[in-house]
């Protein structure tokens, strides 16, 4: 079974686990943990136990594998980009998460979490969403598993993304406005957590990235590990081994964690690309918010700042703790990219390869464009985490 093929990665980078299991206290090096209101601690612990047991259970893995294959359309292919490679002077391979059902990698984790929630006897899902990608994915899983679902979305985002709101409703979910704070993603996380505090017994909080309290950063990464497992097998057969560089965009960090996990034990350089206006890793200021100890954009007093990015999916001021660990241990590097470069990349991929990327992975391509001298002659695997359909209207206005 493809999913379970690469059960354990080896950890050649020091004695703290590098993309292996976190410590007992849910830590990757010094990052992670379970910084949640007391009411949620038993729920997180229950989830930790349930996930450990499910993930060790071949029946659960089989079920998830079948969902991945027969519902989500996995494995996603790797596309070798001849035209783009010629243009940039390095060999570019795309891991095509854009071809998954609902159009991004998000479906991997959402199917895993819904399956787990069902196994735990939960009947409801609650989720946060920014632009709506994770909300639509969660609503999708809720429809499939016949679960009630409530999605929190910032009031401002609800107005900006009315089509995704409609999608979630079509899928049978209820969308609720997060009206506090900046009324965007981080406030939706707050509201979803608050909702969870009040409904913790019947409800699973379906978190959208490798963030939040333990076991989320680990669990969500494990559900996305399929990206890396597939990609490493595909690269083995296409390239005879790992690529020189693996690049992914980083919002919370789930797609990056998924693909990095396939290559962390190889010689490949791992590069995460953040929006310049939301570079939690780039600034490297630690904090404890939304459940974990990680890097966080904040002012001198610890008040959380708003991130700013052309891409709603990267508009998050924090980042998953495992990335903080990968950055601190220097196993991965993290680079900022400007909105303008992202727009260039978005257009370049469409024009040269007939693939309109989501703005999020266009960040990763933007970095490749910018670093092309450094990358000359190398083989670069880019995680194309989602398709650009959701961004086309925005880009039409932007480029008008």
């Amino acid at each position, binding site marked *: 079974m493809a999913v379970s093929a690469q059960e354990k990665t080896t950890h050649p980078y020091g004695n703290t686990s590098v993309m292996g299991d976190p410590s007992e*206290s849910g830590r990757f090096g010094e990052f992670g*943990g*379970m*910084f*949640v*209101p*007391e*009411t*949620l*601690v*038993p*729920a997180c612990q229950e989830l930790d136990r349930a996930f450990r047991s499910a993930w060790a259970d071949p029946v659960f893995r089989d079920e998830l594998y079948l969902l991945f294959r027969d519902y989500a359309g996995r494995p996603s292919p790797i596309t070798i980009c001849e035209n783009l490679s010629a243009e940039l002077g390095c060999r570019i391979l795309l891991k095509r998460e854009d071809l998954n059902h609902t159009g991004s990698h998000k479906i991997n984790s959402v199917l895993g979490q819904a399956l787990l929630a069902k196994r735990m006897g939960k009947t409801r899902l609650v989720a946060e969403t920014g632009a709506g990608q994770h909300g639509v994915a969660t609503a999708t899983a809720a429809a499939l598993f016949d679960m009630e679902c409530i999605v929190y979305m910032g009031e401002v985002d609800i107005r900006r993304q009315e089509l995704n709101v409609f999608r979630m409703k079509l899928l049978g979910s209820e969308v609720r406005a997060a009206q*506090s*704070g900046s009324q965007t993603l*981080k*406030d939706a996380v*707050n509201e979803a*957590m*608050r909702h969870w*505090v*009040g*409904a*913790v*017994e019947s409800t699973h909080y379906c978190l959208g990235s490798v963030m939040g309290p333990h076991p989320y950063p680990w669990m969500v990464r494990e559900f996305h590990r399929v990206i890396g497992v597939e990609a490493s097998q595909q690269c083995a057969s296409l390239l005879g081994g790992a690529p020189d560089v693996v690049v992914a965009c980083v919002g919370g960090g789930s797609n990056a964690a998924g693909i990095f996990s396939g290559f962390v034990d190889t010689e490949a350089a791992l590069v995460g690309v953040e929006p310049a206006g939301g570079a939690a890793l780039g600034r490297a200021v*630690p*904090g*404890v*918010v*939304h*459940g974990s*100890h990680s890097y*966080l954009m*904040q002012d*001198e*007093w*610890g*008040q*959380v700042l708003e991130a700013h990015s052309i891409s709603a999916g990267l508009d998050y001021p924090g980042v998953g703790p495992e990335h903080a660990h990968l950055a601190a241990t220097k196993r991965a590097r993290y680079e900022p990219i400007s909105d303008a470069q992202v727009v260039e990349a978005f257009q370049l991929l469409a024009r040269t390869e007939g693939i309109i990327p989501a703005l999020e992975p266009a960040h990763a391509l933007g970095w490749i464009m910018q670093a092309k001298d450094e990358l000359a002659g190398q083989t670069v695997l880019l995680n194309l985490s989602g398709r650009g359909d959701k961004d086309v209207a925005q880009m039409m206005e932007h480029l008008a």
Partner: protein
Amino acid sequence: MTGVLEAALRARLDRGGKCLVPYLTGGLGNDWLETVQAAAIAGADAVEIGIPFSDPVMDGPTIQLANDRALAAGVTPQQVFDRLHRADIGVPTVVMTYGNIAYRMGYQRFAASLARSTVAGAILPDIPLEELGPWATAADAEAIETVLLGAPTASDERLARIAQRSRGFVYAVGLLGITGVREQLAASAKVIAKRLKAVTDLPVLVGVGVGTPRQAVEVCEEADGVVVGSAMVQRMLDGAGPDGVAELVAEFRQALDESTNHC
């Protein structure tokens, strides 16, 4: 060694009374410190002072709004400390804020700041038992009493561990949910109080969902007292001023006293 917070509460209990701890948002309005003082005079046994945070996940709309307003007015933790410094309040104070405020300042510096401002205790609701170590070390060194929360979702065994590590009192979370006034007292409120009482000698005060004097009296059939947050903060938001808040504190005081025939 019993801290000043615990001592003040025990004193009330020893007199056969029930403890009343109003929660007020620090930095909300220019007269917030006067409001704290007025609450003390009106019968609070201690006052919980919220330090505004951008992302208060345990709080409902009322306290969120109070946070947002105070932050929009530019309040910082340091300003709250500075005003508390040597202010004459008459009862112990305990700050309530979120982990990142303390973490960002540095746990030691944060604890030291509290001590310098003669704050007796601290509540950091998103730093649970498992994550408490570094903060507890810093707090203990400055004799800051760290109040822990015990929630309905915990096992008895967990409640016992929480109560054992708590200082000042144990904050019994009255319901599954965030702060805010409810029509009715949740059934869970008396249950959690009773469960905690069974595992600790510390005062057990119920907070979250205690919004009226009647609810306070009801929960105190099991609990040693109450923390009243959103109802108080709503008065502050309504512009009731120190007198308006004091009036509400007095109503709670009176109801609790009448229920125990205590004065």
